[in-house]
């Protein structure tokens, strides 16, 4: 299936209702969505709850499996499953991060991480599941080590951003952490071998970076390219030296590759790069856009082009888009309209 031909369509599979306030974020459980295990996803909302959804294999319909409530006292802004799929971390405006475990079919809160001075905006697990990162309006990024018995120890408090940190994301293969902020920059954090973490690069306007709040970032499967999206209405693609990266050089610099502008006319809140290389974006203009690398053989090098767009994918702002695990081209989006929509990208033939 060669999607470079552009013969693709976006099918709307189902709308998941249940949350009573805007849905901010969602996360697909990475240990699900295989031939044996039906896909599971978690969503979090301004209604202060987290909902777990599962697709029934027999009729392929999604249903709500669990509602995680009475733990967070304010909006739950972000959620992320550990790589094993056994733990779920949720970050909230109540300044805490909760860790949940599925114990005999019930989700229980097994740990609460405190320390941030105000709203937690994002949570992210590293590739091995040994580290968890959180970030906050307090301008800091915290790195927590996962200890036995569901204990979490803060190993570093990273200072450097001058404003609200909107998202953190670990690199897919290396223990290098990326953060993006209201201060318009993306920062790269690495450990020097003695346990000290520091900022090894800042991607700002002088590096062809964004001119307003950077809301999200995502990596391609290989980990040598990154996509960022912003309030400045653009999507930017960055790349690093593959050779140096493969040698484990976590200080290899990132460089701007190209900027995609004119595709959204309001703040772009989310971008996600699929395993196959399709970039999905969701914005406050209620629309979804899909981009792929252009193979037009231009002398100037690789560029990205629009593959497909869906106007009015939701009735209100789209806050998050995430590709599902497994082989199907499933995508989920969340919105201020209180719903989650499941989509499938399919060939037209």
């Amino acid at each position, binding site marked *: 299936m060669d999607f470079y031909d552009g013969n693709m369509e976006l099918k709307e599979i189902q709308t998941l209702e249940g949350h009573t306030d805007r849905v901010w974020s969602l996360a697909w459980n990475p240990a699900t969505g295989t031939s044996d295990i039906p896909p599971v996803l978690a969503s979090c909302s*301004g209604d202060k709850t987290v909902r777990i959804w599962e697709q029934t294999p027999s009729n392929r319909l999604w249903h709500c499996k669990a509602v995680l409530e009475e733990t967070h006292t304010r*909006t739950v802004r972000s959620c992320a499953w550990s790589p094993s799929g056994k733990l779920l971390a949720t970050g909230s405006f109540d300044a805490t991060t909760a860790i949940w475990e599925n114990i005999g079919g019930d989700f229980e809160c097994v740990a609460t991480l405190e320390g941030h001075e*105000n709203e937690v905006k994002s949570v992210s697990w590293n590739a091995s599941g040994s580290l968890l990162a959180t970030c906050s309006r307090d301008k800091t990024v915290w790195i927590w080590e996962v200890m036995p018995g569901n204990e979490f120890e803060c190993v570093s408090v990273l200072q450097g951003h001058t404003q609200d940190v909107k998202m953190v994301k670990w690199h897919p293969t290396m223990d290098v952490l990326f953060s993006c902020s209201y201060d318009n920059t993306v920062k790269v954090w690495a450990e020097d071998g003695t346990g000290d973490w520091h900022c090894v690069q800042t991607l700002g306007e002088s590096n062809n970076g964004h001119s*307003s709040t950077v809301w999200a970032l995502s990596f391609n499967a290989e980990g040598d390219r990154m996509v960022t999206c912003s*309030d400045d209405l653009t999507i930017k693609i960055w790349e690093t030296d593959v050779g140096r990266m493969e040698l484990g050089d976590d200080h290899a610099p990132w460089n701007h590759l190209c900027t995609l502008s004119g595709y959204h006319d309001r703040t772009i809140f989310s971008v996600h790069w699929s395993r196959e290389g399709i970039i999905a974006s969701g914005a406050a203009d209620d629309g979804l856009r899909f981009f792929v690398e252009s193979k037009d053989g231009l002398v100037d090098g690789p560029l990205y082009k629009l593959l497909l767009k869906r106007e009015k994918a939701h009735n209100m702002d789209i806050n998050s888009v995430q590709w599902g695990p497994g082989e199907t081209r499933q995508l989920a989006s969340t919105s201020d309209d209180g719903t989650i929509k499941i989509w499938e990208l399919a060939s037209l033939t």
Partner: protein
Amino acid sequence: MTLGLINANPVVHAKKERVARNEDLHCDDAVDPLEIYDILNLILFFFSDIRDPEHPYSLEQLSVLSEESITVDDKLGRILITFTPTIQHCSMATIIGLCLRVKLQECFPPHYKVDIKVFPGSHADEEAVNKQLNDKERVAAALENPNLRQLVDECLYSNEL
């Protein structure tokens, strides 16, 4: 949150007489049937009830808002509000902006997108204030803060009997 009076002598303008409209505004239908001018009058009628946090006069009487301040695009479902804080360094600009946003949520269907900015040249930190007022996540978090929420409620509802 205690505030000293920053602007002790505001200039007060005569309140324009305006025909009161049907107060049942919060409907799920589009606002297409109404002419734009009527919509503006409706907003101003409700805004005439918002008190500046520091003074007993309404935002309209202090020339914070006027008919020129409001742009509505019915088709796209977008609203732009431009307001003038009473003085250059008014630290209440963000509170006034929050109040406007909460009030507008009551007036318009939920899918309307609202942008609120300070009138160009009317504030020392124009860019910074505009950025904060239009960061949806910051607004949501601010309204979950009980102290800020109380302040906003006082501004909006303190004259209700």
